[in-house]
């Protein structure tokens, strides 16, 4: 029961910080809320036994991406955020609640049993494990592509 309470607290914290990040009209408040969202997500991964994943999430999003966002805010000098029609943003919250509720009902009634990864589905996906060394190559290619794109975007305008 204790772990369910932790899950509910983490879920509540995530929704609260995301709502603060997306509904705030000040950039600084949004950035701070997004930073806390990253931290809570990292804590959730760590609490459920995956410390490495939590660390990667915190370093990548709470560390690198937050600083990157802050740099862009300083470069552009934007201080106010226009988040579009407020009614539509507010309408997204009940929509998310409905979808979450439907998925809860589906899981509890057993209709969504096919969502779960079973041993047989792992057998079907076993080809992924034979290609594990390619994971690193894919990541290196993605990072290199991103760096080349950023350099060409920022360096080629003069």
């Amino acid at each position, binding site marked *: 029961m204790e772990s369910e309470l932790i899950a509910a607290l983490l879920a509540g914290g995530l929704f609260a910080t995301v709502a603060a990040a997306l509904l705030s009209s000040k*950039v600084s408040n949004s950035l701070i809320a997004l930073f806390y969202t990253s931290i809570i997500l990292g804590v959730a991964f760590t609490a459920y036994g995956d410390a490495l994943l939590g660390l990667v999430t915190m370093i990548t999003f709470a560390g690198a991406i937050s600083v990157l966002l802050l740099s862009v805010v300083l470069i552009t000098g934007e201080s106010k955020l226009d988040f579009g029609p407020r009614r*539509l943003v507010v309408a997204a919250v009940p929509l998310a609640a409905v979808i979450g509720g439907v998925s809860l009902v589906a899981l509890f009634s057993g209709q969504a049993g096919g969502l779960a990864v079973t041993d047989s589905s792992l057998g079907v996906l076993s080809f992924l494990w034979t290609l594990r060394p390619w994971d690193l190559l894919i990541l290196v290619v993605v990072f290199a592509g991103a760096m080349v794109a950023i350099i060409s975007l920022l360096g080629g305008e003069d």
Partner: protein
Amino acid sequence: MVLDQTILLATGTGLLFVGIGSISVSKNLLKSIMSFQVTVFGANLALFASGMGFGSRLLSDTFVVLSVLVGASVEAVGLAIIVVVYRKYGTLNPDEIRRLRR
């Protein structure tokens, strides 16, 4: 464990849809990037939760790490595009940028 998995799966799905909804109504490119980050968070949490409760979680963990790094790369490129667009047009409002292009 099943209830934990359900709560986290529902939270991940909810964050995913909130992020997508916010991207579609946002009137600021910076806000769109922040909404994209929320979408990535939701996807990561849903992927992680889908692998809970089984003997080996390595498959879902692999996908989450891949998703984190690809999401971070995409976000970095998006921020670079925002800087270029701001230098060229002086605004981050997509409607205003579209008007200035004409």
